[in-house]
């Protein structure tokens, strides 16, 4: 409500528009793009804290980062706020030159001071995504020495070890490295909070759009940033929180929203027959997998792990339950990542699975439970897996639960089998290798708890190999190391990766230029328009 007065200006504009519509007209204004999306995951608008799907997309459209990657070819990294950068010979110092004449939406000039402040701030606040920067040896005590301004338009970042440069650079493309308006944020600082309590619900960026309003569980409104160089064609973008997918479909078909973001496979099939609607999709850096807890003595047998990999009907899941929302994928690195293995060696093979189970001394199968969130898609996949497991005598009991409840149990490693998704935290292969193939301490009180830990798996030499891969500065050698890591997990790991997630958006025909990238913060409305 506090933000409303600001709105009165634009309201006057909308008012003139409104009179040209009659009350029953079901169409969104021509300069406004309206999404129907489940946005109840947003808990903050501060880029130092944003780590959820919908808020990442909002940050990606409203903030800029030092550098970013090309969504069509992720190996191409380009400067966003940065004009150029160099890496020192010892591989530890990165020097960035900032573009001049850039301005924030507030009108304040954007300089190296803002970039340094933003990165230091993210490390000092130490919210959930801060580890993406923290892994280079920064903490609140040393960050002011490690990330330094060296000129009005120049800064240096000094990392603790000579990492693979792509690793460092990809991490700097994350949302957490967004550039915030130092002057504006500092004006709203209270009790040394670095403006956190204010920025949680406000905006201080330089991206193509500004955040005008956020009503939790209801709506987010973006408005064109007049100071952005390449002006956005749309005047505003509205994200409406529509929980029910059937409702999203009705709104889309009626033209009350322009894009529906959460349709299920049947609804996608239905709307794609509508001549006014087109369907767009993009593979995401997220894989679906089963986690087999090694505390369960049966699942700890290598033959059983392998047998279960032969007891999933990959093709059927991708073609029916997850039609258009997933493609078969079996390695832990999603397609598009450096070194990703795209071969799919496993398919449903009951005879082979039975043979493996017999070798493990489980000729007649065994009983095991699987914790399943009650979302329709997860339940559908779980039931399909239950039926194929049964063909080899493996009795799978499904334990339905709410998302957070199942996750709580998984994190305490009290499950047998867990079914879920894993999205990469950043665009570099280390993000997934670090969690699927490394586990420094498998004890109950371990400090770090990657997915390997959650499934009580000690990957042995793979941990050291993962640590080495992140230091390899030769891209080709590095890719080869990740291939070997994936192969080892494919052969023997406690993960049955079965799908790579595809994000689908159903759009009205007149929508043009909404781009979906591999991560949510690369879903862009910057050049979207309506014809």
């Amino acid at each position: 409500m506090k933000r409303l007065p600001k709105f009165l200006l634009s309201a006057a504009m909308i008012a003139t528009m409104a009179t040209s519509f009659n009350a029953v007209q079901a169409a969104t204004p021509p300069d406004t793009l309206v999404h129907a999306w489940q946005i109840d995951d947003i808990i903050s608008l501060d880029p130092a804290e944003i780590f959820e799907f919908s808020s990442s997309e909002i940050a990606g459209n409203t903030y800029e980062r030092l550098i970013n990657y090309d969504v069509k070819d992720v190996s191409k990294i380009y400067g966003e706020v940065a004009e150029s950068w160099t890496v020192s010979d010892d591989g530890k110092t990165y020097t960035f030159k900032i573009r001049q004449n850039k301005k924030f939406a507030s009108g304040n000039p954007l300089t190296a001071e803002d970039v340094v402040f933003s990165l230091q701030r993210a490390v000092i606040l130490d919210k959930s995504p801060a580890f993406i920067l923290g892994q280079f040896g920064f903490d609140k005590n040393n960050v002011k020495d490690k990330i330094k301004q060296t000129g009005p338009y120049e800064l240096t970042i000094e990392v603790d070890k000579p990492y693979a440069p792509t690793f460092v650079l990809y991490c700097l493309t994350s949302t957490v490295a967004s550039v915030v308006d130092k002057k504006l944020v500092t004006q709203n600082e209270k009790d040394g909070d670095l403006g956190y309590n204010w920025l949680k619900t406000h905006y201080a960026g330089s991206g193509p759009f500004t955040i005008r309003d956020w009503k939790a569980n209801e709506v987010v409104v973006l408005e064109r940033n007049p100071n952005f160089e390449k002006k956005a064609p749309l005047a505003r973008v509205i994200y409406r929180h529509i929980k029910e997918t059937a409702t999203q479909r009705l709104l889309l078909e009626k033209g009350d929203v322009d894009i529906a973001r959460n349709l299920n496979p049947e609804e996608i099939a239905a709307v794609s027959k509508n001549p006014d609607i087109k369907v767009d999709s993009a593979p995401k850096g997220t894989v679906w997998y089963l986690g087999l807890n090694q505390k369960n003595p049966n699942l700890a047998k290598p033959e059983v792990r392998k047998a279960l990999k032969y007891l999933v009907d990959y093709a059927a899941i991708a073609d029916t339950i997850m039609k258009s929302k997933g493609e078969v994928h079996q390695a832990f690195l999603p397609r598009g990542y450096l070194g990703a293995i795209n071969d799919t060696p496993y398919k449903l093979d009951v005879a082979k699975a039975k043979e493996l189970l017999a070798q493990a001394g489980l000729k007649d199968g065994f009983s095991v439970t699987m914790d399943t969130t009650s979302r329709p898609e997860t339940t559908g996949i779980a039931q399909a897996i239950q039926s194929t497991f049964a063909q080899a005598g493996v009795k799978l009991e499904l334990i339905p639960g709410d998302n957070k409840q199942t996750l709580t149990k998984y994190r305490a490693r009290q499950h047998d089998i867990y079914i879920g998704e894993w999205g990469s935290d950043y665009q570099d292969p280390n993000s997934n290798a670090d969690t699927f193939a490394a586990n420094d301490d498998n004890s109950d009180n371990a400090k770090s708890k990657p997915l390997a830990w959650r499934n009580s798996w000690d990957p042995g030499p793979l941990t050291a190999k993962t640590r080495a891969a992140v230091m390899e500065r030769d891209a080709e050698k590095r890719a080869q190391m990740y291939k070997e890591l994936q192969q080892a997990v494919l052969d023997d790991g406690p993960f049955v990766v079965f799908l790579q997630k595809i994000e689908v958006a159903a759009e009205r025909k007149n929508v043009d230029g909404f781009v979906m990238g591999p991560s949510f913060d690369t879903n862009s409305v910057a050049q979207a328009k309506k014809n």
Partner: protein
Amino acid sequence: MASSIANGGGGHSALRFYLTKTAQFVLVLATTLLGLVAVTFFIGRIVPVDPVLAIVGDRAPPQVYARVREELGLDLPLIQQFWVYLKKAVTGDFGNSVLTTNPVMTDIANTFPATFELATLGTLIGSIIGIPLGVLAAVKRGSLIDQVVRFIGLAGYSIPIFWLGLMGLLLFYAKLGWVAGPGRIDVTYSYLYTPVTGIVLIDTAMQGQWDAFWDAVSHIILPACLLGYFSLAYISRMTRSFMLNELAQEYVIAARVKGLSEMRVIWRHALRNAAVPLVTVIALSYANLLEGSVLTETVFAWPGLGQYITNSLQNADMNAVLGGTLVIGAAFVLLNLVSDLLYRLLDPRTR
């Protein structure tokens, strides 16, 4: 409640009645709320969901997790946590929701009016149509009308509201285009008025934004009719049975013998007496709707209290759940009081 009325009956003065009533109300309110808070609090802490997850997500490093856990006070013993909460609640500080980052009471002030608007309209529709239907069914007992009313009631009980809501949208919104779609108001109008009461119909009307008002009407009409139908199903059944009871009383026969018109006998005499228990029925059904009909709110993308509390519960956002429970509890107690007072107006014997 009924027994307290009986005790208070007799020749007491009206003033004394209202004084006792007020004291009683405050006492009931306080104990109800305290009980509610205690039960909700402890259930909330037993639920196997980790509230820290809602804030830090699944990826946070251990030190971030531990810090937030401490910030939430979850490292304290349960009893101490409860005491801390109570102490703050008494001063009006119900904490912040972790999901929306707002103070819980701000969130409720934002969501409750949406539910209130819908529930009030739904109850009005349910009563205005349900009572005459019930009366008609009682008077023409066994006739076709009675059967039809019975069918309407039965259908209202048994059809899932979720399905009916979607079908309603499909027909009246998608196919016929008679009403507007899900949501409270079109995007085009949503910033034309300043929220004062939070009740869109009242805000737009008071600010003379008639286009926006009619748009809001076209949005609320379908969900309100839907909720109206469900309360109608209940109200008409109850009206019928209360009326049957009254129509069999001697005073009705006496009235008829006196030669009063059938209309007068039914609507003035019998219904007047049936109205007393009916008030409780309507109050209960109203209170039910005020809790927020989660399914209706979900189908119609209605940002009300039901969705808010459900979402909070699923994320173990306990401050929000506790705040919501308190508001609903208070609403129940208040409605009980109102129906008590109405009893007194309607039934001279209780004075």
